[in-house]
């Protein structure tokens, strides 16, 4: 692999945030190169929204710090897709045009037209999916260099999800923006995102280039056994009546003899394995 020179986008160091009764984020440290499209994945309550809100500048962390590129223009679309209920999408865009120092009306309006959003109906009368599109149009119109999206796909049907991701990727391919997007829809991320941030209970379990992370692991499948036939750290295992599965961290594709087989690890395998290992509370 030739190394691609990437400039730093977000540098996060020891970030922590607690609420009155709980810790939402604990000692988070990671680097996200500029221009990456990162999926922020984790169970409910893992701290995804807290992390995005801190990065957006709307919430002050209790510990640690983060730095963005100089002059970064941040757009944050919160989970509730907040748009004024009594305003129409057309007026929401007019408002956004005045509130943002940088504004591209054509792009914002094109986004709404592409998805057939009625420009003159009050936002309160739009569906959840349509309100999402209004919030995304405002974000796109502000020409962000860092786009933070909290569950952008949650209210969208499968066709709209595919189209929204495709168009978002086109927008960021044009602008070179960095994207951090929280989502539960792990099965649809392959080829869409190139970076992973995996959170559990406020702690970062894994982060990095998606291909590199997955390539460093294998799924070893075979007859029921106590131990994996492959050397390396076992991150997760599962034992059925006649079968055992081990997710093993290993730098090279290992050799196993029949009846054992080694399979590449999909993003879904990886995420589910790491999250279920933390849920059991038996991580070493």
């Amino acid at each position, binding site marked *: 692999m030739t190394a691609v020179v990437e400039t730093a986008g977000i540098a996060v160091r020891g970030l922590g945030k607690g609420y009155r009764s709980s810790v939402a984020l604990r000692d988070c440290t990671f680097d996200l190169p500029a221009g990456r499209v990162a999926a922020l994945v984790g169970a409910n309550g893992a701290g995804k929204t807290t992390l995005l809100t801190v990065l957006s500048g709307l919430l002050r962390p209790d510990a640690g710090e983060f730095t963005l590129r100089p002059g970064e223009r941040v757009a944050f679309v919160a989970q509730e897709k907040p748009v004024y209920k009594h305003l129409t999408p057309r007026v929401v865009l007019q408002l956004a045009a005045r509130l943002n120092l940088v504004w591209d009306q054509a792009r914002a309006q094109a986004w709404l037209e592409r998805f057939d959003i009625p420009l003159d109906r009050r936002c309160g009368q739009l569906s959840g999916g349509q309100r999402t599109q209004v919030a995304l149009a405002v974000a796109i119109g502000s020409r962000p260099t860092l786009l933070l999206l909290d569950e952008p796909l949650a209210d969208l049907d499968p066709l709209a999800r595919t189209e929204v991701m495709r168009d978002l*990727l*086109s927008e960021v391919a044009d602008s070179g923006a960095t994207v951090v997007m929280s989502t539960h829809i792990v099965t649809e991320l392959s080829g*869409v995102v*190139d970076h992973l941030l995996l959170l559990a209970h406020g702690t970062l379990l894994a982060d990095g280039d998606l*291909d590199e992370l997955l390539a460093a692991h294998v799924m070893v499948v075979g007859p029921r056994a106590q131990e994996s036939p492959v050397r390396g750290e076992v991150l997760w295992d599962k034992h059925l009546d006649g079968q055992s599965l081990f997710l093993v961290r290993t730098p090279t*594709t290992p050799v196993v003899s*029949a009846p054992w087989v080694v*399979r*590449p690890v999909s993003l879904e*395998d990886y995420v589910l394995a790491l999250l279920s290992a933390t849920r059991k509370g038996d991580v070493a």
Partner: protein
Amino acid sequence: MVEFRIDKASGLPAYLQLARQVREALRLGWLKPGDRLPTVRDVVATSGVNANTVLKAYRELERAGLLEARQGSGTFVKATLGSVDPEVMDRLRAKLVDWVDEARAAGLENEDIDALVGSVLTEGERIEVP
């Protein structure tokens, strides 16, 4: 024009899936030397694949000597993948037909045959671990 598709459930990284699809197009003659590949922007817009993933696939194919990036004008097919002599193909196919007959006679289903072929193919790709 190649239309790229990502099998999202596959454990194979998306960029390798794209690279494989270009290789297939070369092998089948859909792409010939001198043909221009869709721009990264076009692939993103039509297939919904991340731009970095497309770039990575193109770079991989450039390293393999199959594509070349020309400054300012795009990515072009540089070499073709040697197509196998039709006679050799016929001979291999005939052998395979005999082999499949034998496997069926032994009671193997299609799935068993797939698994067997898969295991022999991956055996060839084994990387020795010290």
